[in-house]
């Protein structure tokens, strides 16, 4: 195969554009990988959250473009993915359809096939997983099937690359043909009505691109587009009563008042006929398949949830334990890189901008890459093995009580690590309203960056024996608050009917390493690119606000003072005083003073207000900001006991409680807000989130402050 596929596009090539369609979990993505042998170009379409990807490759003298469309069960617009596929198939131009079918489940897959057949587009059927079917004792007569359907059916296996050459040959052959008439036969009652309409159209020589049979079927199925076209024609007046009569006849035949349902039944019985003709089962089906055996344990009434919790706990341990190892190296690399670059720049302001602004800001983002890779691998594993739908099944009951969907759990759990991948993983939710509701709640799961702040404050006000429990309480109450607010939002802003929960539980499969690697790589690069460019900008802004306007007079005064003193400790404290005064008259300080009255009811002074606002950029900034403001030096961490002492001395207990409450609830960070806006799909949702979290944070902090005053 490698001899015939060339990586370069010949100057004069025949282009063949192919739409790859199939139900979910039939191995489409793997087939596209096997057929092109290596992905040469994978591009994302903009404007939709669910991506369809394009793969380009050459075979013989032909230049192929394969559009991998999201999996769809039928031609409905039930989910975003189905809408993308349906719109593409109806509105875009392409030469051929490859319909990928799971050979081990022929009858169910044919449901989509028959709907595709009624589109009268050229089509080739790839009977995928034929090796797996053989193992299960299922034999499909592909030759006879091609004859019956009038569509070439080719046995392939994406896993072993069996049949790829044959499939490509058939695609080339089909592309040369002008038309292809699929053989879709209905019940006598429907065929009779189709014939009547076809006769009528023939008699009046109706001008059309599609065959009369096709038009007749579409009219009977209530196809909107066909109606719009034919209604403009004078023959409509006579055709209309004919159609009404025909529909009545068909509905009577099916004992139903829903023509769509009647046609679905027509398709199903046609498919049963095909399956009866072409499929033979050699082996008796095993009493219990492997999937059923695994399911007996994993979705067990009692053990199911504990097993799931154990998996999640393991993923968390891996994310933070394993992820912490490269983090140290990345951190020290950026430290070294900043120092090295800083050493070559003589101008103080430019050096500060590049080292303290850009390098440290971008470094902070890159720092989280190991965690994100591990988390993405875990999520990709959950998705590809089929376990995810089992968890949704187990948890739907509990989540549904709070107005959330069973599948909301993945983003929410991820939120304890970092809100950014959490927002991104909310994509698994098909329904817009469910996804938005989940996006609004994610922030209540306290992310890893808030931990240093909690540790600092809890350490300052509670005994070491109590600290652990208090910390756990903070996390737990955040999560409970999130669930309660989900219920509140569901009853108010996201009011509406409950999204039905009807979901396939796919067979368990061993994931393909190549596919997981590909998914994780694409997602990680996207994270680096988008969040990276943004963070660089945001950290420059924060750097600027906290460093300007400069006050040379003040700096000179302190420079001489520091020069005069001989005691090292004194020098250090003077340095801190200088930092504090400089910060107080910087733009950030001005903002803090200006907003102080707003925070007075919560018991915050201007320093706490500034720290909170700096925390909008990133929660890690809060600790270092407080450190600078309370003059113990910018270089502090949560373990630093002098900052802890300063805080317990300067901040009253009630104010500290209110402060923690605000941190638990308000916006995670700027980078997360950008990702949130992108995932929610509109900037207005960001303002809703900002308003919602700020108001809730303010009210609850006010209540907490006043309660704590009485304690």
């Amino acid at each position, binding site marked *: 195969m490698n001899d015939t596929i060339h990586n370069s596009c010949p100057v004069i090539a025949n282009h063949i554009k192919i739409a790859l369609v199939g139900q979910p979990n039939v191995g489409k993505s793997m087939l596209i990988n096997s057929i092109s042998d290596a992905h040469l170009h994978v591009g994302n379409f903009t404007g939709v959250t669910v991506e369809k990807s394009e793969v380009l490759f050459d075979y013989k003298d032909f230049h192929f473009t394969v559009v991998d469309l999201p999996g769809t*069960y039928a031609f409905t617009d039930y989910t975003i993915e189905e809408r993308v596929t349906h719109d593409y198939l109806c509105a875009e131009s392409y030469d051929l359809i490859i319909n990928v079918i799971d050979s081990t489940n022929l009858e169910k897959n044919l449901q989509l096939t028959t709907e595709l057949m009624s589109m009268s587009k050229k089509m080739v059927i790839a009977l995928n997983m034929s090796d797996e079917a053989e193992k299960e004792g299922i034999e499909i007569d592909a030759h006879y099937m091609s004859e019956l359907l009038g569509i070439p059916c080719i046995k392939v296996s994406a896993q072993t690359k069996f049949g790829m050459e044959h499939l490509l040959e058939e695609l080339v052959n089909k592309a040369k043909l002008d038309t292809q008439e699929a053989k879709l036969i209905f019940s006598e009652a429907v065929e009779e009505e189709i014939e009547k309409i076809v006769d009528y159209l023939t008699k009046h020589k109706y001008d059309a691109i599609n065959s009369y049979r096709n038009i007749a079927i579409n009219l009977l199925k209530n196809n909107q587009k066909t109606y719009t076209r034919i209604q403009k024609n004078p023959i409509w007046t006579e055709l209309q009563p004919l159609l009404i009569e025909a529909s009545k006849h068909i509905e009577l035949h099916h004992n139903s008042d829903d023509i769509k*349902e009647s046609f679905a039944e027509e398709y199903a019985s046609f498919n049963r006929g095909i399956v009866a003709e072409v499929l033979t089962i050699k082996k008796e089906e095993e009493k219990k398949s492997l999937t059923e055996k695994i399911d007996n344990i994993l979705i067990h009434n009692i053990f199911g949830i504990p097993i799931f919790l154990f998996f999640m706990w393991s993923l968390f341990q891996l994310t933070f334990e394993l992820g912490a190892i490269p983090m140290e190296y990345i951190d020290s690399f950026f430290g070294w890189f900043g120092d090295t670059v800083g050493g070559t720049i003589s101008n103080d302001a430019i050096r500060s901008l590049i080292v303290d602004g850009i390098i440290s800001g971008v470094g902070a983002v890159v720092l989280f890459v190991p965690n994100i890779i591990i988390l993405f691998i875990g999520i990709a594993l959950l998705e590809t093995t089929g376990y995810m739908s089992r968890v949704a*099944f187990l948890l739907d009951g509990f989540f549904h009580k709070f107005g959330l969907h069973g599948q909301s759990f993945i983003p929410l759990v991820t939120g304890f690590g970092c809100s950014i991948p959490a927002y991104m993983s909310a994509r698994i939710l098909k329904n817009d309203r469910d996804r938005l509701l989940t996006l609004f709640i994610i922030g209540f799961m306290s992310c890893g960056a808030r931990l240093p702040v909690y540790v600092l404050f809890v350490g300052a006000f509670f005994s070491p024996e109590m600290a652990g429990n208090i910390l756990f309480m903070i996390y737990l109450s955040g999560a409970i608050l999130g669930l309660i607010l989900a219920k509140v939002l569901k009853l108010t802003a996201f009011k509406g009917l409950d999204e039905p929960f009807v979901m396939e539980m796919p067979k368990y499969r061993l994931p393909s390493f190549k596919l997981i690697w590909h998914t994780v790589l694409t997602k990680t690069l996207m994270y680096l690119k988008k969040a990276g460019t943004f963070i660089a900008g945001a950290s420059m802004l924060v750097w600027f606000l906290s460093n300007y306007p400069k006050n040379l007079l003040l700096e000179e005064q302190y420079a001489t003072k520091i020069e005069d003193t001989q005691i090292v400790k004194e020098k250090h404290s003077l340095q801190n005083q200088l930092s504090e005064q400089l910060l107080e008259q910087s733009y950030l300080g001005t903002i803090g003073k200006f907003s102080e009255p707003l925070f007075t009811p919560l018991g915050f002074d201007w320093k706490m207000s500034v720290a909170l606002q700096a925390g909008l950029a990133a929660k890690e900034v809060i600790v270092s900001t407080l450190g600078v403001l309370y003059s113990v030096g910018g270089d502090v961490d949560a373990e630093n006991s002098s900052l802890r002492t300063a805080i317990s001395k300067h901040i009253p207990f009630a104010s500290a409680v209110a402060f923690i409450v605000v941190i638990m609830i308000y916006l995670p960070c700027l980078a997360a807000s950008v990702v949130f806006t992108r995932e929610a799909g509109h900037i207005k949702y960001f303002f809703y989130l900002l308003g919602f979290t700020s108001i809730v944070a303010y009210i609850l902090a006010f209540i907490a402050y006043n309660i704590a005053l009485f304690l």
Partner: protein
Amino acid sequence: MMQKLSQCNKGEKVKVTKLNAKSDLKQRLISFGIMKEATIEVLEHAPAKSTIEIKVGKMRIALRAEEADLIEIESL
């Protein structure tokens, strides 16, 4: 007496007689093979019977009790 899928026990095999769902959901159920005359086997109940797992043909499907309530069946 009219029976609903939501009332079935684990391991029971039944035949669908009617779908009472609204258009969208009905189409969804049909695309999953849940239609008149189809045979359904109840495989598992989630805790508190809030969700059930059924088997239609070779496909395993999870349904919420509310959705299962819309599917009329008869025993086989």
